[in-house]
């Protein structure tokens, strides 16, 4: 069993031991009537039908649905990178008016800066926050270790595999100690094995830090393996059509029968909702 430090918490593969004080953890999110329309070639397109959603502090929510159903748009609005056509997002009771490091967005393409090595990438947010070089390096090292990339501090993006890039992106986000992680199909472009391993690692980190996580995916089993709740989206207009609470014990195993049954139920909903559900992956 390997032991690693996350802030003040010591994690083992088997579980968590609280060492000193409990971690700060996540914050609640309230999404009220958020909708998004845009004009394309003279036509008004409704990308996101008004969404209402309450997320508890430390909850792991999976947003599931085919491409173009507004999941990413919603995430982008919560991150403050995109503006809504109407509605409000409250993070811990404060209205969201722009990007903030309490909510960090992760992308499918990892979005590492190719001109910076791994360590400088992880330090990027800390540098913006005005943290001194020495402290930056220490924090970065801790999170590079956490995502198992010790020894790759001086590597550049193009020297890393897709899975390693996502680990760096995760470390870069975690280094800022955000209360909310907004993850936009971060494992979507990875091979199945790497994805499984990163799912387990993400769950371990979440269990240790209790951050609020919103995780976009079009992979039904991934959603069930990770989420406390799975919100099923449908396209045209993008909207939430069903909500599933996943009460399976953690850590969950992808080949668990209960999980597979649950996946079948959700897949059925997706197929019934729209013929476009072909875009959803049963894997």
């Amino acid at each position, binding site marked *: 069993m390997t032991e690693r430090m996350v802030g003040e918490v010591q994690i083992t593969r088997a579980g968590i031991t609280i060492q000193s004080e409990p971690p700060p953890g996540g914050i609640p999110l309230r999404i009220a009537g958020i909708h998004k329309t845009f004009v394309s070639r003279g036509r008004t397109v409704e990308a996101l039908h008004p969404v209402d959603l309450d997320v508890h502090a430390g909850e792991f929510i999976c947003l599931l649905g085919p491409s173009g159903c507004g999941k990413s748009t919603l995430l982008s609005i919560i991150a403050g990178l995109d503006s809504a056509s109407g509605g409000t997002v409250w993070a811990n009771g404060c209205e969201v008016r722009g990007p903030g490091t309490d909510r960090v967005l992760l992308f499918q393409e990892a979005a590492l800066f190719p001109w910076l090595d791994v360590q400088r990438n992880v330090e990027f947010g800390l540098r913006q926050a005005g943290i001194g070089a020495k402290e930056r390096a220490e924090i970065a090292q801790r999170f590079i270790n956490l995502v198992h990339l010790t020894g790759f501090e001086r590597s550049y993006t193009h020297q*890393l595999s897709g899975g390693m890039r996502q680990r760096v992106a995760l470390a870069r986000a975690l280094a800022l100690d955000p209360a909310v992680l907004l993850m936009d199909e971060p494992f979507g472009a990875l091979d199945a094995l790497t994805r499984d391993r990163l799912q387990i690692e993400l769950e371990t980190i979440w269990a240790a830090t209790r951050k609020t996580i919103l995780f976009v995916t079009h992979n039904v089993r991934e959603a069930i393996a990770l989420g406390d709740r799975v919100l099923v989206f449908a396209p045209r207009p993008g909207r939430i059509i069903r909500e599933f609470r996943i009460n399976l014990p953690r850590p969950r195993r992808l080949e668990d029968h209960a999980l597979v049954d649950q996946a079948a139920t959700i897949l059925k909903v997706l197929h019934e909702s729209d013929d476009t559900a072909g875009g959803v992956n049963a894997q």
Partner: protein
Amino acid sequence: MPNETRTPSRQFGISRESLTPWLRRLAFYLVLLALWEGVARAGFWPEYLFPGPFTVLETLIRGLRKGTFVTATLVSLRRLAIGYGISLVLGLTLGLLIGRIKALNETLGSLVLGLQALPSVCWLPLAILWFGLSERAIIFVVVLGALFSIILGVEAGVKNTPPLYLKAAHTLGAHGIAIYTQVVLPAALPAILSGLKQGWSFAWRSLMAGELLYFTLSLGNLLQTGRDLNDAAQVMAVMVMIIIVGVSLDQSIFAPLERRVRERWGLG
């Protein structure tokens, strides 16, 4: 532990494959020089019009020994450095502004595009009218030679900054000037570098053209004196000198910079 490790493979040492192109190149130049010498000796033209490679080499060595070629090179390099330095500062600033501000792009951007079509030597008559046959006139032409290429390179790079990098920077808390210095400029570096490289070669060309008209000692001026003295050997020797200076600047500054950026950005 991640098993997905990729290390860049590099080959060190001289292998047979890397030696062959060099041998081929050497053979090519030897044949070329032999042909040149042959034509010169055949005596179709008098020697002062068509000297052989040995005469040219002799003139080159004499010029270097006397110091005239060295001084001339230094004078030209000094002008190049001043002119290029000025266009570097102006070009980076203007390129950044034109690339990021739409109103400037639509106005100043189109002007730059138009002026880029004008060979910079065309500015020389105007420069001489304004500044006289002075140092300022020639530096003016060098600046204009490099400026537009640099502006366009920076502008292209800045305009094509992947939006994903900007989003990532924003979500990680970057704002204001840091977006430019830490994201936009580095992201644009490959395009900026090709603008800088084109700018330098244009500056070098304009400088040589401008110096042809000058009476003070410089590389371009040495070409002109060679002509005045009916001394083709000197003209050719100075041409060789100009090639050497140009190639070595390119190889010592731009080639390594480009290689580093390509490696770092994973482009090549």
